[in-house]
């Protein structure tokens, strides 16, 4: 994931550092070592299996884009909520119980058939943590930060998002004072889906604006 070269690092690809082909014996040995460590720490009263599980879940899920996805799904099903979200995003997001550190001063920008929004932080890597979770590596890369401003269509194309010339692309520069999130368009054919099912469709990339929300292929 070098940020030196000119392309935005690919996302969605597994990290090669974890792609180790271990033999079943090696896996067993590692499992045993970890289990032994855990047993010692539990016996010393330092950790409990439940807190370990909870902690891992926090990192897996709370840092994922789940909170932002729930906000989007609510806005799709509840026009009054959507209005509040676009008027005062920080308060509307707080209604769902999200916010806090680095989640204050949120602004939500709406995608329409004629406007596509994309978010960047050119200065550093400001990112609304509690809502969007972990910033992806490419978000902080120099090529993304500089090129999305100069050539947003080209960068979006590298993400696999081809926009017609008729669609206006707006680039929003996040800062410590203002953090942006995109409200993507609700995909067609999702009228029957529940709010929770809709939230499951929303990806982190769509909330940054480098992708659209698609109906999952196994549903189509």
């Amino acid at each position, binding site marked *: 994931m070098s940020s030196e070269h000119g392309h935005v690092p690919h996302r969605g690809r597994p990290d090669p550092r974890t792609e180790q082909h271990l033999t079943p014996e090696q896996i067993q040995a590692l*499992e045993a070592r970890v*289990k032994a*460590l855990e047993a010692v720490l539990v016996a010393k009263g*330092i950790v409990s299996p439940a807190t*370990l599980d909870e902690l891992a879940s926090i990192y897996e899920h709370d840092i994922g884009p789940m909170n932002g996805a729930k906000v989007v799904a609510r806005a799709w099903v509840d026009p009054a909520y959507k209005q509040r979200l676009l008027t005062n995003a920080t308060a509307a997001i707080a209604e769902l119980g999200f916010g806090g550190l680095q989640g204050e001063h949120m602004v939500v920008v709406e995608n329409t058939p004629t406007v596509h929004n994309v978010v960047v932080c050119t200065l550093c890597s400001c990112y609304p943590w509690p809502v969007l*979770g*972990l910033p992806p*590596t490419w978000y902080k890369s120099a090529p993304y930060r500089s090129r999305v401003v100069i050539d947003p269509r080209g960068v979006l194309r590298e993400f696999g998002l081809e926009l017609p010339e008729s669609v206006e692309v707006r680039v929003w520069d996040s800062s410590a004072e203002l953090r942006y999130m995109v409200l993507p368009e609700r995909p067609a054919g999702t009228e029957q889906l529940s709010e929770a099912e809709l939230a499951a469709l929303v990806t*982190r990339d769509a909330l940054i604006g480098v992708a659209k929300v698609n109906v999952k292929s196994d549903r189509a």
Partner: protein
Amino acid sequence: MKRAATPHIAEMSGPASLPRRSGELVFHAPWERRVFAMAVALCEQGFYTWDEFRERLIAAIAAGERRAQQDPTQRAPSYYESWLAAFERLLVDKGIL
């Protein structure tokens, strides 16, 4: 215990950066998830600072790569194998093990 992820853990850069796919953490096996959580849990409880763990993680990754370079029959350890080695080392250094 804290209810939210800590930026200086989640945002480590360079060789120590957490393996992710589309920004989300990737664990390939339950043991990776357990050892990840153990290292974070003990840091949150003040047994060590995250920098102390990160230094050992970087050292473990570098040592693994060196071994693999010197001996072609050895493969470089995966990220969480290095994590496990660093965590064990830190527990010994801190007198917890």
